[in-house]
């Protein structure tokens, strides 16, 4: 069971980050989320990054890609670095549905069996 991202459905509202953080830290903020919107604002290029147990999923508009943590990744600026220090996604263990999936308004986040 994995968290999957259909990146083109994302509208960049960022509520998934806050929902994820709520699972980890029980408060409302984006500081401890296992996923993060990456956005080059002036070019309208945006997608999700999800921290996994062993790797980082870059859900780019042109398709998902798995990379090793710390790998040099084109298009991910310094602002995206905090994701590497976050807790990995645990699919909201103990909950009936991951909070990011629940909170997402577009269905861009879902669970793949």
């Amino acid at each position, binding site marked *: 069971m994995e968290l999957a991202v259909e990146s083109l459905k994302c509208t960049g*509202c960022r509520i998934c980050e806050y929902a994820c953080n*709520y699972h980890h830290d029980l408060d409302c*903020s984006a500081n401890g989320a296992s996923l993060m919107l990456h956005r080059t604002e002036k070019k*309208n290029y945006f997608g999700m990054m999800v921290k996994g147990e062993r790797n980082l999923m870059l859900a780019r508009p042109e398709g998902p890609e798995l990379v090793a943590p710390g790998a040099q990744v084109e298009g991910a600026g310094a*602002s995206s670095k905090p994701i590497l220090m976050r807790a990995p996604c645990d699919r909201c263990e103990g909950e009936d549905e991951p909070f990011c999936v629940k909170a997402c308004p577009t269905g861009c986040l879902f669970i793949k069996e």
Partner: protein
Amino acid sequence: MDRGNVYMGRILLVDLNKGTCEEEELSQDLIEEHVGGAAINLALYERYQDRDPVVMGTGLLTGTFAPSACAGVLTGKSPVTGRVCHVPLLGQTAVELKYSGFDFIVILGESEKPVRLWLHDELAEVVGAGDVWGKDVWETVEKLRFEHGDDYVQIVCIGPAGEKGSLLAQVSESYWGSRDIFGLGASLGKKKLKAIAMRGLGSLEVAEGFFDECVQLKNEIASGRIRGVQGLVPILESLGADPEGLKAVQARVHRNVASFNCIYPYNSFVMIEEDPKLLKESQKKEPGLLLTDPAGVASLLFLKEGLPAVLRKINRLGLDPAACGRILAKQGVTDAGEAEKSLAAFLVEGFSLDGQGVENVYGAAPWPLSVGLEARLVQAASLFSHSLPPQPALASFEDFSAPDDAAGRARWWLERQAACLILGICPLSALLSPELSLEKMAGLAAKACQWDSLTEDVIRGKARQLVQKTAALAEPKGKLPSAWQDPEFEASVKGLLQGG
């Protein structure tokens, strides 16, 4: 009431004459009396009225899980209308303000030299802005984000229009246009305040059960009226804007973008020098722009394919697109290149719609497409930005169970805007989704901070008070368009503002 669930608990007082920042506690009493957002802004405005304050504040629910809780508000005396006005801040701006550690900022007096404000992690500094004064909005945002080493810094700033004191000057929200049609860009220019940059890692507590209730309302909204629709063009289509102009804009739309926690993505990115179907990251530095302002786009539609390039220039100069569109149309300019050149003449101290012979409502009626009496009434009231449609969009007054008569509908619109700007709920989303009812907003507000007596009626009362108090603070200058001038209409506007 649990303040820590909704606010950081801090008001920042910035004295530009002295170049200092002071903190004050956001007291429980102030929240209990005014609830939040525009109502607290107004209380702070009144307290410091003799120092020409501009107040930037966040709503009770701004930055929380409540659907569409993206809104903040700028309150100040409009140099265009003479009235005190409330301009919604959407996108990510207000959320970043709250999480930087400050719920409200009161900007007092004037600086001698250009300055900017940097808010981060409960710290605030006034710093020199000699390095960005004279730069356009995009250059300013780029430079400040680079300097602070973070692309997620949100910036409220002015461009050359505000620096020079043009009354068409708009406060910008990072790169993009805001909903400021009241010339607050000129007010910041007069204060020599170039920019407010914000970044924060704060957090709010969450009441038991609040998240699930928010998710439930989000699901109702997503499967409701807006289901299957996206972007700015359908909104303007539903309001009867020129189909040919809209077709030209839609052909350039890349992807639609939502403001924080908004279900309907009403911002649309349009590509200019790039294929709108591009999935990869563009190799061009500035391939397009984000359309954020319904009235501005409506006002410039006559430029058709030329609209995006002209609007990009308008955004860079920090001008109000709605007003620019009215003037360009009056001048008979239809060529994009010629339009871009014409804009330079708007960057002059005191430049206004009046001086260009454009009939307007106290300087600022951007809705050539609104002819309904209720739409004329809310524009004549001129308290909340009519950058947003003066009526529901993608839905009708009936869908919202609004009153049948024009005066009743205008009152409904004013109260809905006021309630949203008090609570921090996006006032544009609230015109698209009947599911986002005042009852539901009040329920979430009460739940968020365990404030049981905060009912729909209480919020409606605060909204009415906000309208009346704001209107009573200053007399408007200018006059109504000639076609609108009749004693009955003027009496209706007065009645609306006095709560009659």
